[in-house]
């Protein structure tokens, strides 16, 4: 009876990408924020060679989390402006498909920022950040933020404090991901053997799965009255 | 080797005071909110009577 899951998901993703190509509101602000954040961190920490090695993955992930929060807020308030989310809810589509569409859009946008940051930080911090495993860890970490973030953003845009509440709600819940991702990236940068940091990757994957399931189930409750 | 057991009872005392202080504060806040609610209820009842 419902429009097929995949078709809805793809339509939502295509819609978000088209709107984004048009306005460049999301990627633009996220990217600008990310670059500024990296520059400010390098000033603030006055990093020498050794300190840099320790701090670089922390800087990377903190920047990514905050950039993704910017994007998530924007992406959800876009649905709230003009109440267009109501039009989505009026359509014969499953709420999980709507969630999947919004979530994958947010995931890809943040991943683009991450992929841009890797070479940039490689140059600016003189650290070997571009590697296959780094990419895997990055995709895994961002996947988890994007799924819980999409769910929580759908909640916080409906609160009185609106945008301000998303980081407060998201950061603590994202801690397991953040910590694991930082640990794994630090290990990758210092060229540690896979065995020594495989646990962190496992945690990221488990948390990703749990969070995405909760978010898929919870989204319907959040958007409906 | 002489090992002297450190004397740090004052920290223990502090911990006990803080722990039970926090518990009492919570119980007190529940009680205070309860009393406020009762008072509100009385006011509403009075208004309903009138």
């Amino acid at each position: 009876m419902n429009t097929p899951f995949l078709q809805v998901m793809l339509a939502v993703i295509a819609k978000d990408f088209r709107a984004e190509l048009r306005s460049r509101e999301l990627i633009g602000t996220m990217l600008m924020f990310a670059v500024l954040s990296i520059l400010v961190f390098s000033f603030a920490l006055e990093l020498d060679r050794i300190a840099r090695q320790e701090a670089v993955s922390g800087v990377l992930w903190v920047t990514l989390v905050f950039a993704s929060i910017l994007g998530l807020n924007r992406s959800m308030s876009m649905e709230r402006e003009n109440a267009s989310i109501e039009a989505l809810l009026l359509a014969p589509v499953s709420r999980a498909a709507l969630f999947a569409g919004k979530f994958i859009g947010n995931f890809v946008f943040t991943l683009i920022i991450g992929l841009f940051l890797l070479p940039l930080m490689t140059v600016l911090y003189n650290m070997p950040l571009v590697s296959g495993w780094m990419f895997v860890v990055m995709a895994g970490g961002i996947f988890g933020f994007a799924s819980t973030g999409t769910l929580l953003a759908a909640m916080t845009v409906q609160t009185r404090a609106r945008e301000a509440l998303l980081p407060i709600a998201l950061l603590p819940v994202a801690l397991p991901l953040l910590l694991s991702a930082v640990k794994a990236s630090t290990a990758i940068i210092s060229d540690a053997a896979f065995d020594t940091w495989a646990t962190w990757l496992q945690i990221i994957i488990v948390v990703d799965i749990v969070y995405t399931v909760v978010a898929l189930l919870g989204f319907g409750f959040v958007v409906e009255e | 080797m002489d090992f002297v057991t450190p004397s740090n009872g004052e920290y223990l005392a502090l911990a006990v005071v803080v722990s039970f202080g926090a518990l009492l504060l919570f119980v007190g806040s529940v009680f205070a909110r309860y009393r406020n609610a009762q008072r509100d209820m009385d006011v509403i009842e009075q208004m309903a009577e009138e």
Partner: protein
Amino acid sequence: MSDSSPNIIEVRNLAKTYDVLPVLKPLDLDIPRGQFVALLGPNGSGKTTLLRLIAGLIKPTAGTIRIGGWQIPQETEAIRAQIGMVSHKPLLYDNLTARENLRFFARLYHLPPQDIPPRIDLLLKRVGLFKRAETLVRTFSRGMLQRLSIARALLHDPHVLLFDEPHTGLDRDAMTILDNLLLEAHQEGHTIIMTTHHLESAAQLAERAVIIYRGSIACDTPTSPDLPRTYANVTGGIV
């Protein structure tokens, strides 16, 4: 789901309570196929709640709604495909063009791909926006947004059209265009339920006026030029 009843919408014992506040007290309402009904009442009377319940946007506290044989809340999903709604908010995306907006919603309603372009052209012509098809919705005036919303609601050719305060914020000319579109849709055989404060339009367009007051149906009457007076009698002059 063979449906022999002449009524496309049958509301039974429908009630909605927010927390403990009864917004809608248990009410019954039958609407025959093809009728144009105006839902009237002061702000907060519950008319918008009733409309949103029929649209499946909110769940009833008690009671059922049957639409075309399907039942809310058990079969809400099946009902969605039969309903088009226009709210006083446009429910459109600012950064997409008129055509892109319609194409997106056409895909959500699972229209066959080959039918989508001609259907969009047809509707854009009908609401007089064909020349602005490639313009960003952000630049549209209130009246144009309203017309595009109507095109969006008509995309999947729903049996039932719901309008929530469509006249709000429109100027004279835009109102005339809107009224004509509403009449056209009615003549095509769509069942229409419209909430409005604009009694004049309601009296002209609708065949039947249902006045909701304090969460109950206070008056259910065929429309006549006398409607404003009837309304004032029922609600004590509150608009």
